[in-house]
C-alpha cells in the first residue's frame, strides 16, 4: 500500500468560505449556528440552522448557475479551492488516473423541494426541465469532473451522516492501492430547504433553540444537550501518493493513514457501541496502528442524547483507561451537522488542528454528563497539543460507521 498525502483542502462552510477561515472560527469557538433567516422560518418549531452567506453569482455564469442546485454550487467551489491549493496540472495526469469521490446525504434537496411545491403546493404540472439533473445525487461529483476534465472514476456515496468520510476513505483505498494518481474527495450538503427541515423536525432529533444564546444551541456531550442543528456547505480534499506529492514539491497538509467501516445491522437510527467501536478498530487495523498510537479524536459528537453517550462508550471500549487522556473535539457545536459533508469538514479541521498543534474546542459544554466523562476539550481550544495521529469519526443513520485515521504529515 502506498502512503497517501493530502495536498489541497477546500471549504465552504458556516464557519467561513475557506479551510483557513473555518479553522480560525473553530479555534476561537465562533459559532456558525443561528436563527434561520428564511421566508418559512415561522413554520419551523425551532428555526435553527448553520447557514451560509453564499452569493452564487460570484462564482458562476448565469447560464451555468441555472443548472446547479445549491449542493453542486458548494461542491464546485470547495473542489476548485482544493485543486487550486494543490497546484496540480490535471493535464499532467494520465487519462483515467484521476477520480472524484463525493458524499452527500440529501443531494439536490432544494430542487426536489421546489418541484414538490410546484406539483402539490401550486397544483401545477409545470416542473422545470432541469429538475432531474439538478436533483440527482451524483450531480455534485459530475460537475466537478466536467469543470476540471477529470475522466477517471466518478463516484457518489450516500450513507447519511458518514457519506463524506466514506468518500474520503474509498478514495484513499484507490490511491493507496495504486489505482489512481489523484483523487478529489469530500462531501457537499444543502439541506436547509423547507421540506427537508420539516422532515428532520418530525424526527425529533433537532435541537431546541437556546433562548438566551441561539448560537449555542448545539451542545455535544453536555448533560443539557437537546439535539443536532442542520448545517450546509462542502469540504473537499486532494489526495495523491505521498511520493508524487514530495517529488513535485507540494505542500502536504497531512496524511490519510487508514479507514475503517462497520455497520450496526441493528436499528435504523439508534447507534450501537459495538458498531462504532468496530469501525474504530477497523480503522486502526487498516493503518496498522495500536490504540495507544492515537493522539486525538474528532468525534462524531452530534449533540443528540443517543449519539454522544454511545460514542463515549465506544471510545472507552477501544481505548480503555487511556480514553480519559485523549483530547476529543466535537466541532459540530459550531458548524452544525452538515450530514453528507460533515465528515469531510471535520477531516479538514482535524488536519489543520494537527498542523497548529491544537486541540479544537467542544463548545457549549457547560453541564457535565456522567455518561460523557472524557476529555472533550470543553469550551476553549487547547494549544500545545502535538498530535501526530487523529481519528475522525462519522456514525450514520442506517448504521454505516466510518472512521479515518489521519497523520500529521511529516516523515514516519
Amino acid at each position, binding site marked *: 500500500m502506498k502512503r497517501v498525502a493530502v495536498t489541497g483542502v477546500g471549504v465552504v462552510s458556516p464557519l467561513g468560505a475557506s479551510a483557513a477561515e473555518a479553522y480560525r472560527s473553530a479555534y476561537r469557538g465562533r459559532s456558525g449556528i443561528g436563527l434561520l433567516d428564511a421566508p418559512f422560518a415561522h413554520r419551523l418549531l425551532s428555526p435553527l440552522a448553520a447557514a451560509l452567506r453564499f452569493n452564487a453569482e460570484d462564482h458562476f455564469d448565469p447560464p451555468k448557475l441555472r443548472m446547479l442546485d445549491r449542493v453542486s454550487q458548494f461542491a464546485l467551489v470547495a473542489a476548485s479551492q482544493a485543486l487550486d491549493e494543490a497546484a496540480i496540472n490535471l493535464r499532467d495526469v494520465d487519462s483515467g488516473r484521476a477520480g472524484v469521490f463525493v458524499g452527500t446525504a440529501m443531494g439536490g434537496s432544494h430542487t426536489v423541494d421546489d418541484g414538490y411545491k410546484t406539483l402539490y403546493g401550486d397544483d401545477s404540472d*409545470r416542473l422545470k426541465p432541469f429538475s432531474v439533473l439538478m436533483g440527482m445525487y451524483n450531480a455534485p461529483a459530475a460537475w466537478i469532473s466536467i469543470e476540471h476534465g477529470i475522466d477517471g472514476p466518478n463516484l457518489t456515496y450516500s450513507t447519511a451522516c458518514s457519506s463524506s468520510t466514506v468518500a474520503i476513505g474509498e478514495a484513499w483505498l484507490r490511491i493507496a492501492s495504486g489505482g489512481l494518481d489523484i483523487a478529489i474527495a469530500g462531501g457537499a450538503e444543502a439541506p436547509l430547504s423547507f421540506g427537508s427541515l420539516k422532515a428532520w423536525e418530525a424526527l425529533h432529533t433537532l435541537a431546541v433553540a437556546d433562548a438566551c444564546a441561539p448560537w449555542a444551541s448545539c451542545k455535544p456531550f453536555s448533560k443539557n444537550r437537546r439535539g443536532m442543528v442542520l448545517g450546509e456547505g462542502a469540504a473537499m480534499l486532494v489526495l495523491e501518493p505521498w511520493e508524487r506529492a514530495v517529488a513535485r514539491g507540494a505542500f502536504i497538509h497531512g496524511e490519510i493513514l487508514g479507514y475503517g467501516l462497520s455497520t450496526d445491522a441493528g436499528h435504523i437510527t439508534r447507534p450501537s457501541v459495538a458498531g462504532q467501536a468496530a469501525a474504530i478498530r477497523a480503522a486502526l487495523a487498516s493503518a496498522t496502528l495500536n490504540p495507544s498510537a492515537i493522539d486525538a479524536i474528532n468525534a462524531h459528537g452530534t449533540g443528540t442524547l443517543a449519539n454522544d453517550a454511545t460514542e463515549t462508550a465506544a471510545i472507552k471500549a477501544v481505548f480503555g483507561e487511556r480514553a480519559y487522556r485523549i483530547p476529543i473535539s466535537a466541532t459540530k457545536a459550531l458548524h452544525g451537522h452538515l450530514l453528507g459533508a460533515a465528515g469531510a469538514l471535520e477531516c479538514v479541521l482535524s488536519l489543520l488542528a494537527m498542523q497548529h498543534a491544537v486541540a479544537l474546542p467542544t463548545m457549549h459544554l457547560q453541564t457535565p454528563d456522567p455518561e460523557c466523562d472524557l476529555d472533550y476539550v470543553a469550551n476553549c481550544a487547547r494549544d500545545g497539543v502535538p498530535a501526530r495521529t487523529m481519528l475522525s469519526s462519522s456514525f450514520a443513520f442506517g448504521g454505516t460507521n466510518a472512521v479515518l485515521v489521519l497523520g500529521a504529515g511529516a516523515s514516519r
Partner: protein
Amino acid sequence: MTTTFERIVSMLVKDYQLNADALTPDSALDELGIDSLGVAELMFNVEDEFKITLPPEAARLATVGDVVHYIDGLVAAQHGVPVPGGLIKAPLSPAA
C-alpha cells in the same frame, strides 16, 4: 407592438445576462452558451411568456430566428390569431 424577436431578446438578456446588441436572428444558440439542454429550459419559459403549449416532440432550433419562427407558428395555431410581428415590426397584413 413588441415583436417576438424583441421578447425573446429580453428573455435572453434577463435570464442569461446576454448583451442585447449582440443578438440577431442569425445568432446561434450554441454560441450563446445555450446548448440543446439549455434550449429545453428556454422553451419552458417561452411557454409561460407566450402562453403556448409545446408539442411533446422536441423541435430542432439552432438560431434565435428559429425560435422566433417556431413560437410564431405555435401562437398562430393555438391562439388562432395572426402573429404579432414575428421578426419584423411591420404588420403581416397591410389590411390589418
